[in-house]
């Protein structure tokens, strides 16, 4: 099981409270998690990454286990703590604007 914490606007859009929990098999990469997230919550398509290029949206960051994964390859394995679900994957919106 993978735990994901979404920013508040995306939780509201997806009608979820608190964490999202997904069951995944195979190698746990950022791409695999986002694929599963969008499969389970299709309204999130395009809000975290571009639907065509799959690039992270500019004001979105990914953190886990006190590491910034935003600029890592989406095909790298996620930290072991995320894979074991002792830590969540954090999807964070940049703090900016008004």
């Amino acid at each position, binding site marked *: 099981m993978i735990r994901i914490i979404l920013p508040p*606007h995306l939780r509201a*859009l997806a009608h979820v409270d608190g964490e999202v929990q997904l069951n995944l098999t195979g190698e746990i990469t950022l791409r695999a998690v986002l694929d599963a997230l969008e499969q389970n919550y299709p*309204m999130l*398509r395009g809000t*975290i990454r571009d*639907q065509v290029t799959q690039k992270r*949206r500019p*004001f*979105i960051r990914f953190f886990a286990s006190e590491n910034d994964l935003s600029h890592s390859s989406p095909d790298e394995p996620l930290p072991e703590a995320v894979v074991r679900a002792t830590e969540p994957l954090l999807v964070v919106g*940049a703090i900016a604007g008004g």
Partner: protein
Amino acid sequence: MSGVRVLVGTRKGAFLLTSDGKRERWDVSGPHFAGWEIYHLKASPVNPDRLYASQSSGWFGQLIQRSNDGGQTWEPVGNKFVYDGVPGTHQWYDGTPHPWEFKRVWHLEPSRDDAETVYAGVEDAALFRSTDGAQTWHELSGLREHGTGPHWQPGAGGMCLHTILLDPKDPARIFVAISAAGTFRSDDGGKTWKPTNRGLRSEFIPNPTAEVGHCVHRIAMHRSRPNVLFMQKHWDVMRSDDAGESWREVSGNLPTDFGFPIDVHAHEPETIYVVPIKSDSEHYPPEGKLRVYRSKTGGNEWEALTKGLPQENCYVNVLRDAMAVDSLDSCGVYFGTTGGQVYASADAGDNWAPIVRDLSAVLSVEVQTLQ
């Protein structure tokens, strides 16, 4: 009993304002999609319970929302807007080539005869159509690719396709307007397009009478006369009597001919409304007096409408999609401001009162006349 529903898009959500035919007491619903920019909402003329909304955010991109119950509940639908083929480049502000990039949906125009068909005007400028209730979108790329696209460039607000007029008498005819490219017309349902800007003059471009490059802010028509178009250009209020083949200026005695919205009275095709705004960069009413100007002669002769509008210390703007009319016997006129007010007149502009005063900046106003 008849009534109206005013659909208001703001920087921080959508609001639905409803009233009976007297238009004196209002019920306010919202914010819907709190915290998101709602560039535009519009209802299907075929099914008044079917609403479409453009929801966007600098963080999370573009969403399209759809309601089947008049805005009580909403569901996210398709938000994949992909340009047809290799989109190429348009001009950047400095004249250098710049790749076409989708940014947001400025305007949604539901079909006049099919609730599942809806058009979307987007930034960077292109026209998309959905025929499945906004689940999937396909570009009508004949517009962007007809030949002048590489010469289009953005206005200050971006290179947006902001106006879509569907001809009520000829289903194959569509008019669109783009800032800063101009107006374009299709006579074959959106397959092929041509610029329709003859008569426009813009001193801020190298060739003031160029085929494209004009910063058209808004165009409007009356349903009984779709060959007569009215335009608020960056500067100049213009009129065409031949479906955009040629334009002539009708700014007349306006205090300034800069502004954003323009609209037509529901029952009087020669009665039109604008909101003069001071420019270059001020973008607020001249002398701090918020005045709607009405012409009953299709332009040239204008009267200021001031009753109920602030006549001192008013420095708001009225954006291009933020004016609409209802079609009750006594035509109602509505507009929203960047100060968050939505003003209504139930007597064609003679008297005004705010429906709401303290919303976020209003981006768009549409009105449904409900039976």
